[in-house]
């Protein structure tokens, strides 16, 4: 029992970067823009975050630096795709390739450097008491605050999307930019804002990986999580709550390989390392089998450029 709880807690911790990135991409995609550059944004942000943490010792500043780096990368993508009407797929791929190159280039000096691991989130006797609570203690109160941030963000995004006018406008732009434009909404500005927001959240996710989760930098640290986060929005049929649960599941799958290895299961580590990617493929195939399920929730203009009259 106790071990299961600890495993669950670890799954949540490992899934948290995916929650953050997934929510960012969800906002991004709800506006009708598909940003395949998630992996690149996360890589750049991971380096930026790691460098900041190393320089300042502040995790908050590090996550902020990650957000800023992600937002800048996303803004470049936004200028290309929204400003210049470039192909969204190609521009996203360009961002992913560029981000991989830039992060490797900038990060070369940080390989092998060590951060002090994150401190216990809740100090003092109350914190200790909360952490010792059964179930919620390890699942919640002994987690890094970034986990709390991801929970709060999930609620916030769900509330914004489905309970506010701003969310309604965002969904409307994603469904039919032409109609939204005709009604007088600044479609391109809204899309740009959504892209930059998405980039910032992917950035926090990237920094979270290098500063909190790993905590270290190696080339290609993100290891496909950007792409998994993209797949996650589809699995979740663009619903914030499902993004959260899906991300935790994937966090669990990622952990499974370490867990199995620790248990001494005689499967080569490389084969176990395939698990998250294979799981992504399998889930994607299963979810996509029902086109009505996808189509009813997918932003109708996703991936289509919008040409203002």
């Amino acid at each position, binding site marked *: 029992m106790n071990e299961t709880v600890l495993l669950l807690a670890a799954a949540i911790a490992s899934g948290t970067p995916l929650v953050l990135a997934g929510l960012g991409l969800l906002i991004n995609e709800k506006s009708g823009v598909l940003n395949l550059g998630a992996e690149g944004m996360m890589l750049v942000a991971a380096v930026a975050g790691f460098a900041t943490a190393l320089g300042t010792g502040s995790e908050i500043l590090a996550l902020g630096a990650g957000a800023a780096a992600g937002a800048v990368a996303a803004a470049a993508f936004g200028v290309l795709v929204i400003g210049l009407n470039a192909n969204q797929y190609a521009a996203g791929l360009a961002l992913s390739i560029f981000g991989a190159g830039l992060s490797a280039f900038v990060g070369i000096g940080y390989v092998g450097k060590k951060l002090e691991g994150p401190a216990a989130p809740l100090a003092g006797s109350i914190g200790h008491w909360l952490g010792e609570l059964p179930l919620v203690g390890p699942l919640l109160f002994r987690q890094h605050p970034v986990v709390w941030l991801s929970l709060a963000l999930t609620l916030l995004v769900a509330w914004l999307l489905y309970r506010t*006018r701003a969310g*309604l*406008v965002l*969904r*409307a732009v994603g*469904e*039919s930019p*032409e*109609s*939204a*434009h*005709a*009604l*007088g*909404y*600044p479609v391109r500005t809204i899309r740009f804002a959504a892209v930059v927001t998405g980039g910032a959240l992917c950035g926090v996710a990237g920094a979270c990986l290098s500063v909190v989760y790993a905590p270290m930098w190696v080339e290609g640290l993100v290891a496909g999580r950007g792409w998994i986060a993209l797949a996650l929005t589809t699995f979740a049929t663009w619903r914030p709550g499902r993004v959260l649960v899906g991300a935790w599941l994937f966090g669990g799958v990622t952990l499974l390989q370490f867990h199995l290895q620790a248990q001494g299961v005689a499967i080569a580590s490389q084969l176990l390392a395939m698990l998250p990617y294979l799981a992504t493929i399998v889930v994607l195939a299963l979810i996509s089998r029902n086109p*009505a399920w996808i*189509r*009813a929730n997918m932003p*109708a203009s996703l991936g289509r450029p919008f040409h203002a*009259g």
Partner: protein
Amino acid sequence: MPRLQLEGITRHYPGVKANDGIDLTVAAGEIHAVLGENGAGKSTLMKIIHGSVRPDAGTVRWNGEAVQLASPAMAQALGISMVYQHFSLFETLSVAENVWLGLPRGESLASVARRIEAMGASYDLAVDPRRPLHALSVGERQRVEIIRALLGAPKLLILDEPTSVLAPQAIEGLFATLRRLASEGCSILYVSHKLDEIRALCDRCTVLRGGRVTGEVVPARETPGSLSRLMIGTEPPPLTRIAVQPGPVALSVHALSLPDETVHGTALDQVSLALRTGEILGIAGVSGNGQQALLACLSGERVIGPGGDRAAVRLFGNPVGGLGPRERRALGLHFVPEERLGRGAVPALGLDRNTLLTRTEGIGRVGQLKPRAMHALAARLIERFDVRAGGPGSAASSLSGGNLQKFIVGREIDAEPKVLVVAQPTWGVDVGAAAVIRAELLALRARGAAVLVVSEDLDELFLLCDRLQVIARGRLSPARPISETSPAQVGEWMSGLWPGAGNEGAAVATADGTR
């Protein structure tokens, strides 16, 4: 002081002057028609007034003051609302949310829902604010658009071809609503190319041709002929129909039912028809009543699966329900789709390569392309069907709607099909091109081919067809010879109310004439 005054409005697009020095004046409480055929520049002008397109030159005055309409939001703030021909609505949102998005900030959704119901009651525009938009018929959607425009308390309401989606009875209802609005002081700009509607509804009328104003008249004092002369410069050329004795059944559909394929489309319910050689059979109906599914089943774009009744569609007696478009074309069935760019032709490719979509002249024996052969074919089509294009290599997207339609229809007619299925043959096409296309369809019939025309334009169907059927909610009415029916009766049938239509419940549900 006029409410709206345009002076010398000019707007260029690459290669065309869509508006060229247009003057237009609308008084308060006036219903003002803007008449012109397709491509005359009406839509561009309305977009300028609504702020979504900016003019290259000219002044817009609102209540006497010159204004720069930089965006639709700005126009809306002045009190200018527009009901587009293509609705600005969102399928996944509710009626109330759709309306809410069109109103200024600050009002709650619940209050908007209440006002929708109140407005519906007082203007005879009833629609349930809680329903999701995708569950609404085209006519109901138009109501949502109009309600949204009216809730903004507009001083000027622009309607772009509003009757193209309505059955005749619903048109009367719309006119009553518009007259009532005008009597309350709202000015109305009514954009149309339908002469009788303008004569019935409008106080004054500005006529456009080729981007210029050709006249400003009081429509009630004009005849259809005089309006038509202003609009197209001449009277429409008469069509010659020769009597042809219909032959055996060429294409038949028997009790075909199909489930819904898309999320928001209409399926087919026990549809039957029999098309003979030497005749033109028309399918009338308001768009969105199953035409797409029927056409896809006839063309082969939608193949009936092995589990379905593949014999439900027959070509000269042979079941063809399981065959694709190429196989059906090989058997002599050709099809002209409604969408020209992107379906009937590939926009970025030249006309020569576009012949390859349905013709085999340009394909060699080992699967290589023969550029000279397709060039020659395209040149022949350009010549024979009077297509105005730069040459056989011109991209399809560079042609005007009418010329591209002549090319596509020509491409299919030139193949000498035994059966030709045509959707909306002259939709959005200028009068000259429409005349060429209609004459060619009649000539094909005279050569003994069977022609099926699916159109929303009743005038056109009565001009072309030997017999008519009506499609409503995925069901097809019995066929009637043209001589034994009338536009009024067909209009009534467009609501699904034909003898033996059965299912009283359905009839009641559609009695408002919008389905």
